[in-house]
């Protein structure tokens, strides 16, 4: 990882922590802000797909598809922006989808590690259980927008910590002639 990438990871991580902090302190209208974040991420995704097309995918067999997908993401991002009144429903859907996938993968990894008698199965199982608990909590608090904001913020804090930690990780391969 280059020095710039390390700094970039730290800056983005701190930004995520600040955003999570703001959401926790001011949970009112939090779902609207989260929806704005999701819309922004869709718009960014659309733009990045277009950049991907012009730098790489245009050289690939069937690469035109990426161009259409980029345009579609931009369109969905703009559409999401217009749904501020239904923000709670979309935030719930996002939380359920995210934690269901993460939980399933972690538990499967844990079972596999257990089969290989690896010591890492406990941490994977713990992460899987936490994800499933978050999923259950998202379903349970589906109508409570404040709790949904808290649940989203917890996920944001975790991602921020992982990102910041990765910036300090040793990453270069050492080589001698």
């Amino acid at each position, binding site marked *: 990882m280059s020095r710039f990438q390390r700094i970039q990871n730290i800056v983005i991580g701190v930004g995520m922590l600040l955003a999570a902090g703001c959401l926790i302190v001011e949970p009112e209208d939090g779902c609207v802000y989260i929806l704005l974040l999701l819309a922004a991420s869709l718009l960014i995704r659309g733009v990045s797909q277009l950049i991907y097309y012009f*730098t790489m995918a245009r050289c690939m067999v069937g690469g035109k598809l990426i161009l259409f997908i980029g345009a579609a993401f931009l369109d969905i991002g703009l559409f999401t922006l217009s749904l501020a009144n239904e923000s709670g429903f979309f935030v719930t859907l996002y939380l359920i989808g995210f934690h269901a996938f993460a939980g399933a993968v972690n538990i499967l990894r844990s079972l596999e590690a257990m089969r290989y008698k690896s010591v890492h199965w406990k941490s994977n199982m713990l992460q899987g259980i936490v994800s499933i608990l978050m999923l259950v909590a998202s379903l349970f608090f589906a109508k409570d927008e404040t709790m949904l904001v808290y649940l989203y913020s917890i996920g944001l804090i975790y991602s921020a910590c992982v990102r910041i930690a990765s910036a300090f990780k040793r990453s270069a391969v050492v080589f001698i002639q």
Partner: protein
Amino acid sequence: MQIDFHYYATYCAAYLAGYSHEECLAICYSAQFVDCCTRTLLSTINGPDSAATTQLKLEMMDARTDILGLQDITRIWASFHFLPRDLHADIKKGAHVYKEKYRMICGPNGDLLVKTVNLAKEKSLQAVGLAMHVLADTWAHQYFAGTPSQVINNTDYWFYELIPDEENPTDPETGSKNFTERRVTFRHNPVEKDDPEKGLYVGTIYQLQESSVMGLGHGRAGHLPDYSFMRYKYLPAWNDYKEIIKDNPSDYYKAFCQMVYAMKYLRGEYETFETERYDTKAVSPYEEEIRAILEKRQLDSSAEWKALGERLSGEEIPDFDEKRYCGEYADAKGEDKVSTFLGNFFSAALAQKGMVTDQIFKSGNLLAGYSVEYRKSKLLGIRDFILFVEQELKKRRSEAQS
């Protein structure tokens, strides 16, 4: 390639190159162990994390796809399974990021293969086995890259298997072989088994993200590159809509002959290792039988290769047991671990990974991450590699003293 080639065929090649039965067993075990040495396995014996030479399916699913995660994946797959053919390939299309990926495409007889074989010179038998795995895979995995990339590794519906025509095997006028084309259907459930009779094979699912692990290596083409009998034609994502015909029986035969030549070089029969050289002379007495094994439509040819190997040496070849040397390594204390069977394997793996990463880095390509020289900076280096380098230096010093 699979256990049939990496274990049993490598045994046969090693024996034809002049190694003894015991040496052949160490070489072929190491060649096959490259497909078993995962982080999960390493964690069970307290092995060095960075010596991982492959990843389990679920390790892949769990792998981070940020820049560090992708570099880690690339180091593993490009170093051991998809050795790049030409890191300086001159292409006139795409941005710099595209060119970096294009240059990672695997193929035989590249400069890195020479460096790989030379790295095993005067090293342990484990290093020889590891190098033979890498060499063999350059034939099986050519046209795919050991880094997650849709723009290089993607395939589409234009994918046909070429099945030898049993009724009219050859064209009476030209003498060339006749084939029937059959469209390949890829299923995406990893639990299902490949069915060559019906033309149903398991492949990874198409993902939109350029760096999705589904686009790593030949995942999109399933295990077709790994079957010795397989012939197919398809449109690789990188080849400007030009079709490629892959003839595995022919490629695998060349791989076998090149392994014999490479191991003869490692035993000191030749001064230098040259690309495009194959020891067809040593293999010729067995050519018909080997070609028959390679052509047989079956998913695993272990029984046939094992029979050939046992006939060559007159000794029994035990079945591959990935845990055979794990106990010895786990029980060894401190520095004694280095001299165990797996200790030597891990040293060879770290050396190979270090060499390939260094070459990719020096070509101006950051897909496999950064490489630093030990004397310039210890602080940036991954701890496993620092320890490996220090052990190597210590060994060299003691050899120089003696």
